Every structure is written in C-alpha cells, then in structure tokens.
C-alpha cells in the first residue's frame, strides 16, 4: 500500500454517466490484485473531505491503473470534470482481492452495473479456466464496451432492466438460466459477483442453495480504507463472536456464506 500523486492520462465517458479513467502509477499497478481497490482524493482541499473508494478495473502496460466509475454524487461529478494532466492523490492497493479460481474451474462473473469494475480486472488477470461474464444494466445506453477496457475478448451476455438490449430483466435471470442448464457442472464452477446489494443477495442465495462457491465484492461508506476507523462494517453471518467485518481490510471480497444478507 502506498499513497502518491498520480497523473491522469485520460478520463472519458464511455457509457451514460460512466467514465473510464487512466492513472499513471507503476507502483500501484505492480502490487494490484483483482478485487482490490484504491482510495482517491477527488481534489485537494477540504470539500468533499473524504477520499472515495474505487475498485481497480484493469491495468495497462505495467503502469496505467484503470478506474471505471459512475457519476452518482459530488465526488464523482468532480472526477468527471478532470482532464489529462491533472493529478489525484491515490492510496492503494487496498483490501483483499478475490481468491482466484483454479485452472480447472469455470468462473461465472455476475455484474450489476458499475459492479463490473472489479470483475473485469479478475477477468484480465485470470488467464486459466473458462470465464463467462454476465452483465446487467438499466438500459442499453449504460452498457460498457469491454474492448475499451480489456485486452482480451471474452464470452459475455447482457441483461437490461428496460429490455433495450439483451435479456429484458435482471441479470440474475441469466445466472439462474445458466445454473439450471443440464450441462452445467456445479462442482467445477465458481461465482464472482459485484453490484447492488439486492442483486448480490439474490446471487448469494442461488449459490448457497446449490453449494457453488461464490465471492462477492461489497461496498460500504469508508473513511480510512485501511482498517483504522472501523467505519465500514458489514454484518457477518456468524451467530457468535465477531458480528461485523470491515469491508476495507477483511474484504472488500467475501465468500457469500460469511455475510448476513438480511442486513
């Protein structure tokens, strides 16, 4: 983990309200693993005060750190205004990444919207077993073109809430269909998910029901990102002992069975 000023190499809108930012940081790139994140200070000064957490979405040429982000509030709106040459203070890489799939496993990546970010880095990093990516978006305008981010092609399917592209309905429909296919081998499969809470909850339920290993990348409001403030708690499934994990250091990736999805 390091903290450094990094230069913005590019920052462009690649889908509705969705931006891809490239930051030059060979040091962080060298350390980065899929599922890890960075804390970004969106501008100097004291408002907004806190850093914002973003998953590492991909790396390029051993020096570019890619962040895929959606404009949802004050901080991301300021980020969207930044241009090449500006610089941001970045703290990272942070957290524990995904436990990587082994050679023989088929990985199913289930993404809700911007939740695709950490899964793309997983896909970029994992060059072993077969991967299928399922992505859900609100509508066609939000679809993220993978070729803008990944240097590999991959098998993917899309769902949109309004039916303007791909399957009309939630991305979990796609997962369900896949899991229910006759030829699906649950013993050799593993699910990775990131997206809105309710979506991940559904994915978790499907995986748990079928006994398929599943890891989810969670979000929580964070102050420090490094385990110091105890702010980013999430309820564990355990009935005794530790009631809360800290998303920043215990996660952000957790086996779905470790989490209490009713909170």
């Amino acid at each position, binding site marked *: *983990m390091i903290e450094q000023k990094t230069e913005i190499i590019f920052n462009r809108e690649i889908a509705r309200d969705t931006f891809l930012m490239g930051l030059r940081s060979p040091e962080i790139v060298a350390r980065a693993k899929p599922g890890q994140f960075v804390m970004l200070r969106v501008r100097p000064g004291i*408002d907004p005060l806190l850093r914002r957490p973003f998953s590492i979405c991909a790396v390029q040429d051993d020096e570019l750190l890619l962040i895929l982000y959606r404009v949802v509030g004050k901080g991301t709106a300021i980020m969207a205004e930044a241009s090449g040459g500006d610089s941001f203070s970045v703290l990272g890489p942070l957290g524990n990444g995904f436990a990587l799939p082994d050679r023989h496993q088929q990985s199913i990546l289930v993404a809700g919207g911007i939740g695709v970010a950490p899964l793309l880095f997983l896909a970029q990093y994992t060059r072993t077993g077969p991967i299928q990516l399922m992505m859900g978006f609100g509508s066609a305008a939000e679809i993220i073109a993978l070729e803008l981010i990944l240097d590999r092609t991959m098998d993917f399917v899309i769902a949109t809430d309004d039916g303007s592209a791909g399957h009309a309905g939630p991305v979990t429909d796609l997962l369900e269909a896949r899991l229910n296919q006759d030829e699906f081998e649950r013993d050799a499969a593993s699910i990775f998910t990131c997206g809105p809470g309710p979506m991940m909850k559904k994915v978790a339920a499907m995986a748990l029901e079928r006994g398929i290993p599943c890891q989810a990348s969670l979000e*929580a*409001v964070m*102050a*420090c990102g*490094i385990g*110091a403030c105890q702010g980013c708690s999430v309820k564990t499934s355990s009935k005794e002992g530790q009631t809360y994990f800290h998303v920043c250091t215990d996660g952000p990736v957790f086996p779905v069975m470790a989490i209490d999805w009713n909170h």
Partner: protein
Amino acid sequence: MSASYPDLNVKLGPLEFKNPVIMASGTFGYGQEFDALMDLNLLGGIIVKGLSLRPKQGNPPPRIVETPCGMLNAIGLANVGLEVFMKDKIPWLQTLDTRVIVNIYGHSIDEYGELANALKGVEGVSALEVNISCPNVACGGMAFGTDPSVSARVTEEVLKNTDKPVIVKLTPNVTDIGLIARAVEEAGAHALSLINTLTGMAIDIESRRPRLANTFGGLSGPAIRPVALRMVYQVVQSVDIPVIGIGGIMDHQDALEFLIAGAKAIQVGTANFVNPCVGPNIVEGIRDFCRERGIAHIDDLIGSFEPA
C-alpha cells in the same frame, strides 16, 4: 544548524513528547495500520482506539456520513477489548520509539478503574487518556463528561488505579467547558485533551431515515475547528494543567492556531483519513515555520496569543 533546531520537544507535566503532534484516538487504529505509509517514530505520540474491558463490536452500519467539511461517525467504540489488546497490540507498540497513549472507556466508573488497573506497569504505555466524552454509546460515555462531579469521580477512580499520567478528554457538548475542566483538574488529572466530537445528525430525504443507523453521530473535521479552538482557549484560561488541542486540524497552520492559543500539544484526527501521511507533514510544517521565524523552541510559540 543542528538537527534539534528548532527544538520541538514539549513537556506536559510528567509527560514529555519529542514534538507536539499526536495522533487522535479512533482515527489512527492501533498505529500499525499506518506503518507502511510513514515512519511512525517521527510522530510526537499515538493514541490508540478507545479500549474497553471486553471487545466491542460497535454500532450497526452505516457508521459514517460525510458532511460539509466534516464527517459524522457512530462507530460505537468498536475495539478489540483489553485481552486482545494486551496480547496482540502491546508487543508491537512496544517496539515504537514514540509515546503510546491508551484511550480508555468504561460503562461504569468501576470499569474505568479496572481498565486503568489492568494497564498498570505495562511497559510502552506512556499515559492513559480517559474518554468521558464519546457520544456514540448508549450508556455512560458522554453522560459522564457533561457532569462536572461525575467527570471528577471518573478521574479520581482512574488515578487511584494507575501509575501513569492521566489525560482526561472532554466533550464539547456542554454549556461551560471551563467548569468541567476545573472539576477534572481538581480531581488530579495531569492534563486535558479536547475536543471530542460535537453531536450531530443527518437525514436521507428520500427514505426519511437517519443516515447513521445510530441516528446520532459525532461531528469531526475542519467544520468544527473554530469551536474547538474557542474551547481550547477557554480551558487554557481556566486551568493550570496542560491542555492538548484537538478538532479539525488538517495542516501545520491549523496546528499552530491551537499552540498559539496555549495548547501544549495537538491531536490530529479526521485528517488522517484524508491524508494518511498528515502527521509527519505537520511536524515538518511546524519545524519549518519556527525555523523561518527564528523560533528556537516551540515553547516560545505556545501560548503566545496576543489578545485583541
């Protein structure tokens, strides 16, 4: 010029710090979290997360909300508890060459005493900071710190049970902080630290629910600095024991305001989240400020406020 010019060493009664920059409780974990980012020994001191007898899981999430130039937290004093602290944290803390202070919190006056007693003679712990001011726990906490006589009783109980210098940390959520400060001084405290957070709240207008699961939280960060500085100045005028200033300090200039107002040392809290290397930066900034102005010893600056 020698390395020790200007001299930043400060004495707070029995307690000496290599410089007046201390990391505030709850914002610097157990120190270890920041080890990869800086040389911790550059700091004047580190105050670890508030410690209770038994481990505390803390409040349900969300525990944090950003506010204008500040943040609300309702951590609920989540901490590892005395036993784990002694076993897992103390050995590593003992390797540091900076003052380590343990912030303690009890549900009752007796618990404060028990904690103090358990830390008696523990090497590597330079002092206790008694938190009678946390707004985020149901029982005790702030209720203690808003009453002068209860504040005094907690102080006495801790003093009875320890061989270490005792710093009492005051809450700003009171009408007259000077009154509490004097009561704690009379009870025998070696130093005071202030302010803890101001109690605040935020509402999500869509769901109409509180933004913190705990409803209320403690406001910290630059937003509260003017209030903190005022209280520190008032308390410095009210007592003879040394005062440690806390509240919204983001850089060496902010720190200097508190020192000039009469604080013998300062603590840095929320700023650690914004810039994890802020501690050493502030030390350096104070050093440069003194050097550029020919201030040989930080004591020449402390309390040099010129009233209007």
